[in-house]
């Protein structure tokens, strides 16, 4: 399928090297801590290994190439302004000349390092615009020992995701590890992320990444914004007022802000509340223990504007 793109005059050299393959493989270390590229060096596992272009790789790795060539990474092949050490297969695996000749796994970056930092540094050569090494290493994902390739498959990504190279559909990918959060999306109410079949006919409206910056969220929850309140207000901006009579519990700087009353992923209670009915309010307003509204404090026609009111100091509507 891709053979036409590979020049015939070089094929002889490649096949000659293939014949020597069995003899050469034991000579190079290819398990465990294989050769490691360091910033500032030539991008190669073998000193003075030449770049050959991806057409040589396709000769042996056709099945990987079939998927890879449809990914966003493959588009670097068409960019003549891009240096060779950032194009195609060699953009990640290093100069392929020695590997093509020796057919040895150790002659190329085979991503079999135990230390996840080494994997990630290869990706960060080009993706610093997304996250720097320092930013990534402060995330809880990095501290959990994650590698970029735990979520991204540069060769054969999930069926429709050639752009972001994800291994699974967004959101489902997250709950594979974050199972306890995944359970929350089986609850009666949740933010509109669709994970399970009995609700899958509903159109989704969100992804996990709308709230979580998985690459450089500085907070241990990987929040995409500095504070929970700012994050919620990105969509629910009307809750910010400013109201003539705001609810102080919503303020930033004194309490838990939105999370004092709401569970962001899923809840058994209406409006994603932490508890049912007036229980939410009794967290703080303990002096209202004998005050029994007909339904809840806000649906009984009284404190309807719980986030803040422009009408009434007791957060009533009128």
């Amino acid at each position, binding site marked *: 399928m891709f053979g036409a793109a590979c020049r015939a005059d070089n094929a002889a050299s490649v096949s000659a090297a293939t014949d020597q393959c069995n003899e050469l493989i034991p000579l190079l270390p290819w398990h465990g801590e294989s050769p490691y590229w360091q910033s500032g060096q030539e991008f190669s596992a073998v000193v003075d290994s030449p770049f050959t272009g991806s057409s040589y790789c396709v000769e042996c790795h056709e099945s990987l190439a079939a998927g890879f060539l449809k990914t966003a990474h493959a588009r670097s092949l068409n960019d003549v302004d891009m240096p060779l050490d950032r194009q195609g297969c060699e953009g990640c695996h290093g100069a392929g000349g020695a590997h093509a000749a020796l057919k040895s796994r150790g002659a190329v970056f085979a991503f079999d390092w135990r230390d996840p930092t080494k994997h990630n540094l290869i990706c960060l050569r080009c993706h610093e615009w997304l996250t720097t090494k320092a930013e990534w290493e402060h995330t809880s994902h990095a501290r959990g020992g994650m590698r970029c390739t735990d979520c991204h498959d540069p060769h054969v990504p999930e069926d429709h995701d050639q752009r972001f190279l994800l291994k699974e559909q967004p959101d489902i990918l997250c709950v594979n590890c974050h199972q306890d959060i995944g359970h929350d999306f089986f609850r009666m109410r949740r933010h509109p992320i669709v994970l399970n079949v009995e609700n899958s006919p509903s159109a989704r409206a969100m992804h996990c990444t709308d709230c979580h910056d998985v690459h450089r969220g500085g907070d241990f929850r990987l929040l995409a914004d500095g504070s929970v309140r700012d994050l919620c207000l990105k969509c629910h901006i009307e809750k910010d007022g400013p*109201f003539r009579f705001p609810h102080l519990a919503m303020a930033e700087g004194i309490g838990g802000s939105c999370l004092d009353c709401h569970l962001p992923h899923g809840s058994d209670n209406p409006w994603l509340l932490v508890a049912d009915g007036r229980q939410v309010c009794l967290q703080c307003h303990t002096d209202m223990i004998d005050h029994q509204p007909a339904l809840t404090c806000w*649906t009984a026609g009284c404190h309807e504007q719980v986030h803040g009111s422009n009408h009434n100091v007791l957060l009533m509507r009128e």
Partner: protein
Amino acid sequence: MRSTIIAILFLLSLSVPARAEEWIKIYQDGEPVYYAVGYDVEFVRPTDDEIDTANTALLDTVLGYGPWRADAGYGATEYNDTVDAAEHYGRRRGGAFAHKVAIRDYLSPGDWRGLFGDSYDPGATYIEADKSGPHWSFDGAGFSRWGYVYSLDDQGELVRSERRRRQGEITWRRGSMDGGVWRLTGIHYEMNVDLDARQAADVKFRQAGASFRQVENGYQLEGGVYYGSYTSDQLNLNNEYAGGELSAARQLSGDAVVSAEVDYRHTDAGLQDGSVERLRGGGQLSWDICTDATLITSARTCLTDNSVSVGSVVDGYQEYNGLLTYHPEPGVWVSAGFRRRETDLSRLTLEDPATVAAATTVPWPDFNVLDALRVDANSASDRIELRGRVRLKRSLFLSGYYADEQFDELPDAPVYGGASLVSSYFCDRREQGDMRLRWDLGGGANVQLSGMNQTHTNNDRDSEYTLRRYAAGYSGPLGGKWRWTAGVSRHETLVKLGLDPAEESASWNYDVSVASYGSFADYRLSWAHQRTDTAPGGDYHGLGLELTLADWPVSINAWYRKRTESLNGFGDYEDSGVTCAYHFELR
């Protein structure tokens, strides 16, 4: 003539394959290490132009290979209830629909466009679209969701109101890996609610912005500006806002990063004839003390000038943070953090009947009149945080978290129209802890156990709020072509006054999801059940099946859901349905 011969000889020398010695040098941890090969190895050395030409030709071979597929079908839904409630799930399919739409076009090797989404009806649609070249991209996403909200009218009768939400978001990005990235963004969101809806509020929100990020040679600069507006009839809002943010970071000598950030936002409240200004700033130093330990210290401040709100507001706060992380080996890291936060507040003197009278006078008195009736208050707290993750065995991970925040100062609370102040409504101690155990069983299977406890204590009021959540789950293969996940979780909430529980609720959630990929068909089955133990209770049952035939491009989806809520009955419903879709795949 002589120079021509030299040039030809030079070009010929380039085309001759270089010969390596009988050994090769490999970079191992940055140092060249010699490995014997035993015979000469020829490295082919094509020229840069030859590589570029071959690479482009290679990419041309896949043009037109993108997916172009969708499921289109017809579905029927049965609601066995007078309340046609789809509030929390969006509308269900009924009639014609299209979903799992996925179109990817390769216009040229460097130029892509794509369209993805689902559409069940105009009130339940989600679309993502993108178009991109090598150094730019355009992304758009949007959804519409129509549903209902329920409330009581002045006579105490149940009122159902329609709520319609639409959102559209676009981003244009330009940049490259070697330079910076620029983004232009725009967002429009509107939620329209019938005017008789009591608790839900309408909003129309628009924002446009520009931002950039530049990372180069150890420097990092990010910033952005934005302008937007939002209005709400129910909440009496007609506001405009604008702001900007800038942050910079500098890598110092390889083991330290110093950074600073500032953001400013100005909001004009048109109907309230006032404005709010907020200025936040901070600095941070991250220092790798050694290869195993990192210390991060930071300070942040926030100042607010609010000429709209006359109730209790936060005027500003200062934070001082420290975080020490110890990471002795890849499988272990622990961290300890500390935060001191001091907050300045203003509060309305509602213990003064004159203030109450003024605050409830319609039309409202001037801001300055009520502002003069406010007093300053303060809050201060210290927070410690411990966190750790340990690999106990090769595939067994334990992680834990504990945080304790204690307030040594809190604002007193006024009693509405009362003569004196009472203890603060805010709790004086917040504790949270969780523990997670994850066991990777191989083959993609894993077991997870987690527990979380969150307690807010108000010692002066002798009250306590507790939230506990426990979860256990398994995900993994079940036989050759089966994969299943199962989970159970427990959620408890408890409010105590003194020693007595004042309010409590607890529920169990169970969920099972099974997927199988066979030669006859692929199917996914999910089941969820929730049982609330305490009054007011509620139960939920959900069962769904998705069946895709292997040799026939047809998929069938069936579901049944039932929800009862004894609290108010607003959310009671039962629905079931079945759909049949034909799978189109053009390429």
